[in-house]
């Protein structure tokens, strides 16, 4: 800061490391559809006061290198998620059901990516 009048933020506004600040904005999850991507992919999260500014922040934070064509944001608290502790009952039953995978067919080359 070169100017005699350049201000800086009061250190008392800082929060202890690892703790959110009292005035922290809500957390948003960001999904971006890239240049060649078919669907939106989760790229990360950010803080913003509302949906509109979340999209603008996503544009600035996650599309600086021309990554995106379309942005979705969703407030993290609105996402219902499965619990990691239920991993066994939820996913293990599918381990031994190999016939659910369509690996027994020959795909002709002309079909391309599926």
């Amino acid at each position, binding site marked *: 800061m070169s100017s005699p009048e350049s201000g800086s933020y009061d250190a008392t506004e800082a929060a202890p490391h690892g703790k959110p600040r009292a005035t922290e904005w809500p957390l948003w999850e960001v999904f971006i559809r890239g240049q060649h991507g078919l669907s939106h992919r989760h790229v990360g999260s950010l803080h913003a006061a509302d949906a509109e500014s979340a999209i603008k922040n996503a544009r600035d934070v996650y599309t*600086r290198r021309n990554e995106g064509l379309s942005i979705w944001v969703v407030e993290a608290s609105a996402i219902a998620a499965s619990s990691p502790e239920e991993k066994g009952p939820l996913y293990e039953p599918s381990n031994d059901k190999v016939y659910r995978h369509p690996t027994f067919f020959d795909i002709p080359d002309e079909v391309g990516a599926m």
Partner: protein
Amino acid sequence: MSDPLFEFLCRMGDNTLVLGHRVSEWCGVAPVLEEDIALANTALDLIGQTTLWLNLAGEVEGKGRDADALAFRRDVWDFHNVLLVEQPNGDFGQTIMRQFLFDAWHRGYLTALTGSSHTQVAAIAEKSLKEVTYHLERTTDTVIGLGDGTEESHKRMQSALDRLYPYIGEMFFKDAVDEAMISEGIAPDPTSLRAAFDSLLDEVLAKATLTRPDGTFAHKGGKSGQRHSEHLGHILAQMQWLQRAYPDATW
């Protein structure tokens, strides 16, 4: 007076250079990460535009100076940016208010420049306009959000507006360089853009619950280079010291 076209191009480039450098001072110290990156993006856009304007200026001048030579080897009195852009960052609100006022002028001016009789000027304006449209969108939202925010943010935005208001007039002031550009169809009459700026300003300030200050006093002297504020010298000292100490140093 030097070639008016050269002078006009330097003004365009100096505005974006000085403001770009100012905004870059926030890099790493903005109040939140998202705003930090957004400000850095804005600064980079402005520096990119500077390169285009000042390279063209050097070409028009024909003395072998490029954008770097013009940016790093001129002293305060040769810079012809408006006084608004060299004003200190202050707090975040003051930075955003300065940016909003500049963006609002910049978008109107660039829009007019896309119809310039000079094809390179029109091309630079068209490229810049996309970036500046986004800058204005962002600063408009932020001015409204902070103005119509908490008591504290409202107070800070109002004092930023009160402080920066007298710097608006210079952006719409017309002098001999402008006259020359108007007569050649290169650039618009700056005074003709004031009405649209004012109505945008009124609209945004109303939404932001901010009060437009009275008075028509306007600081002048940046655009002509006759009287910069003390702040420009500090900016140049930081921006130019490396090229001054180690001329032609490269990475």
